[in-house]
């Protein structure tokens, strides 16, 4: 069991109440493993309580990357959230805590 943190790097972005997590393999040979293990369902389970809406996953083999578009993840949206990290910028490292 390894943490995703060993295999990939991640950056979080936001649009409204949607968090966008870009997961990028350090090495191309790890991309198939990420594709197999880090499914939309697995991410939804890992980020339970954080991502309240649907998660859509896009596969980008050319970049060795998976893009997770997570709805209802920012307590109502960047501009009116009561949280400190209203943009959910730090969620990238919450995803990298996942065990694969």
């Amino acid at each position, binding site marked *: 069991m390894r943490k995703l943190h060993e295999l990939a790097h991640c950056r979080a*972005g936001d649009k409204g109440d949607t968090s966008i997590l870009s997961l990028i393999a350090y090495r191309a040979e790890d991309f198939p493993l990420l594709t197999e293990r880090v499914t939309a369902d697995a991410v939804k389970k890992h980020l339970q309580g954080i991502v309240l809406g649907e998660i859509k996953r896009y596969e980008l083999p050319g970049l060795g990357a998976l893009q997770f578009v997570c709805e209802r993840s920012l307590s109502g949206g960047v501009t009116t959230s009561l949280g400190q990290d209203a943009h959910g910028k*730090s969620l990238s490292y919450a995803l990298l805590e996942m065990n694969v």
Partner: protein
Amino acid sequence: MREMLRIGAGAGFSGDRLEPAALLAERGAVRYLVLECLGERTVALAQLRKRRDPTRGYDPLLERRVELLLPLLKRNGVRLVTNMGAANPIAAADAIIAIAQAQKTPIRVAIVTGDDVLTKIAPDERTLETQTPIAKYGELVSANAYLGAEALLPALQTGADIIITGRVADPSLFLAPMAHEHGWPLDDFDRLARGTSIGHLLECAGQLCGGYFAEPGRKDVPDMAHLGFPYADVDADGHASLSKVEGTGGCITLATAKEQLLYEVIDPFGYVTPDVVANFSTVTLRESGPNRIEVRGATGKERPQKLKVSVGYFAGYIGEGEISYGGVNALARARLAGEIVRKRLGAGFPDMRVDLIGSTSLHGRSFDASEQPYEIRLRVAARAPTPERAMLIGEEVEALYTNGPAGGGGTRKYVQEQIGIVSTLIERAQVSTKVTLREWSSDAQAA
């Protein structure tokens, strides 16, 4: 080989650092310098400043940026493209003219307006986020349509030294000079998509160069204190090579470029801008030298029929209070403090949030069950309809000094007005853009 066009990214947000742009203008050999300074909420906040003072409402750092850059731009023949006009591009141009006058530098400024559609949006129009009619959001502060490269082209054609505008889609600020210099037709969607991918890679400036990337021991970035900002050499087909000024800190690698290419992209197969629907999944990145990445391969489809509009509305106030606990049982004491505040105020503030900073405040949980933090900062936040009521939160947290658990220290209280943002769409025909010229020269002064 056809001529390369070099465009630099001198700011990635309103509060960005000033020096990297000066380095690009001074030593970057760029022909265009783009300053992207408008976030989702920035225009609404600028609109509020304009209401209080009709000569304001543009970027708060505009004067400092222009005073620093103007001599360098003039000396090296660099044109500036920026959205620092925010809610008041005309007043921004007047401020630029005043600086040019003070520096005795002849200048021509082209102003692009037309993004402000507050009087044009229908109250029954629904938001993209919740499908609620806009009228339901109460008093609106601002409504700005995202303009595309098309709106900037007539301004570029005037030959002006500076092109200033308000809300324009970020990548379009970069695409416009490419389309202008290389003569790309606005229905050549593959070229527009390539230009858009380059604009997207550049729009956050330092983020392409290792900014927002570093993690010690894992993703090391050299000399971050002197982080350089990027530029692109774009050829006539929209293939580009990305790099940064020699000797600056940071790094441009495949990893930094991949993070930036995908950053905030809701659909990598269909990235929608006013100019094109771009497919980034076909983009290829290649490292061709130290701090040099070749970008090619984005493909495009026809631009959307309607334009996106960002609508700002008054969303009440948020009150906050903070206090710290350290040492044995810090977590338990902070928790108790939170419970006390909740009991004292909770009934009047149904929308209250209690955070344990240092433990679970960011993600509502910890992924490491074993931790026992040495110190915790308690944060209580709640929404309120008035600033007076919002202030009660901080006051009650401050009162924990003599009415709460042992050892609390360092209280802070804040009240902030909230501007909410939602989006909607508008027909292109309803948005008419215009170019206005302002100039100053010592000859005109003499005459």
